[in-house]
C-alpha cells in the first residue's frame, strides 16, 4: 500500500483555506520568512556588542573582584590572572580558555574551564555545574552545587580513526533507517524532493553542503565564544546532525528507488517493494549509513568520501528547504521557461 500523501489526502478544502493555501503557494509563508529574518538578525546583533552581551573579557594582566563586589554578566578569561575574592559575587557563567582563574567567592552560574589553570579556594561556592580540564585544583572546603565534570578538552588521539565501533555503525544505520521510514510514512513528498536533489544533482548538493558546513560550523564557534549564545550553538549543532541524518535518509531513498527500478534487480524483493516507499526508504537509509560507516574506515580516502557524501546529504536538505520545495536547477528552469 502506498503511503498517504501529506496533508492526510483530503480532496476538498473549505474555500477560505484553499484561498490561503493558494496564496501561500504563490507568495511563500510570509510570517515564517519574517520570523526567520528576525531570528537571524537577532543572532547577528547579539554577537556584535559588549553592551548586549554583558560579558567581561579578561585577556591579560590582573583582574580582581574584591570582597563585597559584584561581577555582573558572564566572565570570559583568555589570559592573565583573575581572582574572585572571598565575599565577591559573579552572576553569569564563567568560561576559562587561558590564563589563571582563582575562585574564592560565589559564582551563580556554570564554570567551564577547558583551558588555563582553575583553582577553587576554600570559600568558593559554585551554584551551577563545573567542567574543567587538566589544570584544575580544588580545596576540600570548596562547594560545587551542580555536577562536576573533569577531564574536559580534547583527549589525545581523539582525532585518530575510531576503531572497534561496529556497534556504533550498526546503531547509526538502524537510526537512519528509522528516520527514513518515518519521513516516507509521514512526509513522502519532502523525502522525495530531498532524494531528487541528492540523487540527480549530487555536485550541486555537495557544493551547497560545503558552504552550509563551513559557514555553519564557523558561526557556531563564533557564537560559542560569546558565551550567551552557547545554547544557540548547541541548537545549531544538533540541527546540523539531524540535517545530515535526514540527508542520509534521502540519499538512501534515492538509491533504493533507483535499484528497485534497475533491470538487474527486476523480479527480486527490492523490485517488489517498489510500491512501498516506507520499506524502500528504510532499506536505503540502513544501507547508506552502513556503507558510510565502513567506507570511513578505509585509510587515506575513506574519510574524504564519507565527508563528501555527508556534505551532499546536508546540501540536499538545504537546497530543498527540508524537502519543502523541489529543487529545480536554474539552467533547467530557464530552458523550460523558454520552451
Amino acid at each position: 500500500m502506498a503511503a498517504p500523501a501529506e496533508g492526510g489526502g483530503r480532496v476538498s478544502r473549505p474555500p477560505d483555506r484553499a484561498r490561503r493555501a493558494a496564496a501561500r503557494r504563490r507568495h511563500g509563508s510570509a510570517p515564517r520568512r519574517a520570523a526567520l529574518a528576525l531570528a537571524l538578525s537577532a543572532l547577528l546583533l547579539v554577537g556584535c556588542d559588549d553592551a548586549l552581551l554583558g560579558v567581561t573579557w579578561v585577556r591579560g594582566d590582573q583582574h580582581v573582584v574584591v570582597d563585597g563586589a559584584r561581577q555582573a554578566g558572564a566572565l570570559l578569561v583568555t589570559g592573565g590572572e583573575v581572582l574572585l575574592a572571598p565575599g565577591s559575587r559573579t552572576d553569569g557563567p564563567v568560561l576559562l580558555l587561558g590564563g589563571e582563574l582563582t575562585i574564592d567567592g560565589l559564582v551563580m552560574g556554570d564554570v567551564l574551564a577547558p583551558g588555563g589553570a582553575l583553582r577553587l579556594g576554600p570559600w568558593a561556592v559554585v551554584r551551577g555545574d563545573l567542567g574543567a580540564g587538566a589544570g584544575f585544583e580544588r580545596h576540600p572546603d570548596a562547594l560545587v552545587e551542580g555536577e562536576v565534570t573533569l577531564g574536559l578538552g580534547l583527549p589525545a588521539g581523539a582525532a585518530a580513526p575510531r576503531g572497534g565501533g561496529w556497534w556504533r555503525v550498526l546503531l547509526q544505520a538502524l537510526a537512519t533507517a528509522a528516520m527514513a521510514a518515518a519521513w516516507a510514512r509521514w512526509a513522502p513528498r519532502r523525502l522525495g524532493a530531498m532524494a531528487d536533489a541528492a540523487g540527480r544533482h549530487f555536485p550541486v548538493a555537495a557544493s551547497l553542503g560545503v558552504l552550509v558546513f563551513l559557514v555553519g560550523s564557523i558561526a557556531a564557534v563564533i557564537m560559542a565564544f560569546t558565551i550567551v549564545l552557547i545554547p544557540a550553538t548547541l541548537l545549531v549543532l544538533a540541527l546540523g546532525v539531524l540535517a545530515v541524518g535526514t540527508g542520509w535518509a534521502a540519499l538512501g531513498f534515492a538509491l533504493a528507488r533507483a535499484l528497485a527500478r534497475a533491470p538487474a534487480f527486476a523480479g527480486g524483493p527490492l523490485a517488489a517493494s517498489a510500491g512501498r516507499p516506507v520499506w524502500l526508504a528504510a532499506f536505503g537509509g540502513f544501507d547508506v549509513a552502513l556503507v558510510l560507516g565502513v567506507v570511513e574506515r578505509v585509510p587515506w580516502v575513506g574519510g574524504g568520501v564519507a565527508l563528501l557524501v555527508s556534505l551532499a546529504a546536508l546540501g540536499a536538505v538545504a537546497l530543498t528547504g527540508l524537502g519543502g520545495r523541489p529543487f529545480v536547477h536554474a539552467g533547467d528552469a530557464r530552458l523550460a521557461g523558454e520552451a
Partner: protein
Amino acid sequence: MAATSDANPDAPGAAPRGVTAAGIAVFVAFMAAGYAYNVTFVQLGVTDLGRRLVGLEETRVAGAMALLAVVTAAVAVAVGLWMGRAGVGRDLVRKLRIATAVVAGQTLLTVVAPSVASEGAFLAWVLCTAVALGVGVPVTFSLAVDLVPVRHRGLAAAGVTAIAYAFAPLGSGDWTIEPLARTFAVGMLLGTATLAALAWRDTPLVRAWARQHERPAFGVGRYRRGGADARGRLLSVLALLFVVFFVDSLGFLRLVDTPFYVAETWRSAEWGPRATIAAAHVVAAFVGGTLYAALGERALLAWVLGAFVLVHLGYQLDARLGLGDGSVLGIPILYAVAVSLYTVVTFAVWADLSTPDTIGLHAALGVAASAWTATFLSTALALRWAAAGVPFERHVALVNAVALPAFLVLLVIILWPRPRKGAAA
C-alpha cells in the same frame, strides 16, 4: 526543445568540441593572468610604489588610488559605449588586437614601475595604468561571448578564479613592487606574443571562434533568455557586488597591513598555511562555479555577503579576545572561500546579463563602476583610516557597520514574499 538545442553548444552546426574547449582554455588563461595582475600588481603594488619608493604620505597614495578608480571607471564606460555603437562586441579579431595593445602597454608600465621616483611620475604612471585598465576591462570580458558557451560560464569562471588565487598565496608572499614587476613582466611578454599571434594570424581556429557569438548558446546570456528584465537585474547585481567588493577590500587592506593577522596565514613562512588557503580558494572556486549555474543569483550573492559578514564578525571577536590570528575561528579559510565565490560570480555574470552588442558596456559598468570603484574607494578609505590612527578592532567594527546592515537588507529582499515562478532555490 528548440530552446534546449539553441542553448546546447554541441548542437548540430556547432563547432567541434575541441574548438570550444580551446576557446574556454584561452579565456580562462587570459582572464586569470589579467586578474592576478590587477589584484596583486596594481592594487597592492601601487600602494607599495607610492608609499615606499616615492615616499608619499598615506593620504596622497589614497588620493592616487581614488584617481585610478575614477579614471578607470570613466574610460571603461566610454570604451564600453563605443564598443556597442561600433559593433566591436561582435568582432573577435578587433577585440584581440585591442587586447594585445593593452597588454603590451601594461607590460611597459610594469617594467618602468620600479623606476618611478617622483610624485609627478607616480601620478602619470597611475593615469596610464587607469587608461589601460579602462580599455582592457570591457574588451577582455567581452571575449566570453565568443569563447565560452553560456552553460559552461560558471565552470570557466571557477577555472579563472582557481588559477588566479591558487598562485597568490603559494608565491613568495613578498608583495613589494620590484619582485612583482619582475614576475609579471615575464608572463606579460609571453601573453602579448600569444595574443598577437591570435589577433594577426588568420587561422581556422580564430575564424571558428569569431562565428560562435552568432549562436544563442554563446551570444545570449543566461539572464537575457525568455524576455528577462535585463536592466533591473543588472542594476541589482551592480549594487550587490559594489557592496561585496567594498566590504572585502575595506577589511582586507587593513588585514594585510596588520602583521599579526597575516604572518601566520597569507604571509606565513611555512608552506602549510599558505597551501591550505590556496586549496580553500580552489575548492571554493569550483563550489562557486557549480552553484553559479544551479542557483539564482540572489541566493548566491546572499551566501557571499553572508560569508563576508561572518568573516568580519569573526575578526572583530578575535581582536577583542586576543585569540591569535583568526585561525582559531577558521576565519582565513572562510575569507578565502568568500573571495573565491564572489570572484566566480564577477567573471560569469556580466556576460550572462548581455548580448554581443551590450557586453562591452555591461562589463564596463560591472567591473569598472562596481568592482573597481568599490575596491579603490574602499582602499582609499582604509588608507585614510590607517593614517588617522584608527586601531584594527575599530576598523573591523566600522567594516561590520557597513556589512551587517547590507546583509540584513539583502536578507529582507530575499525573504520578501514574491510570486513564485517555479525557479530554483
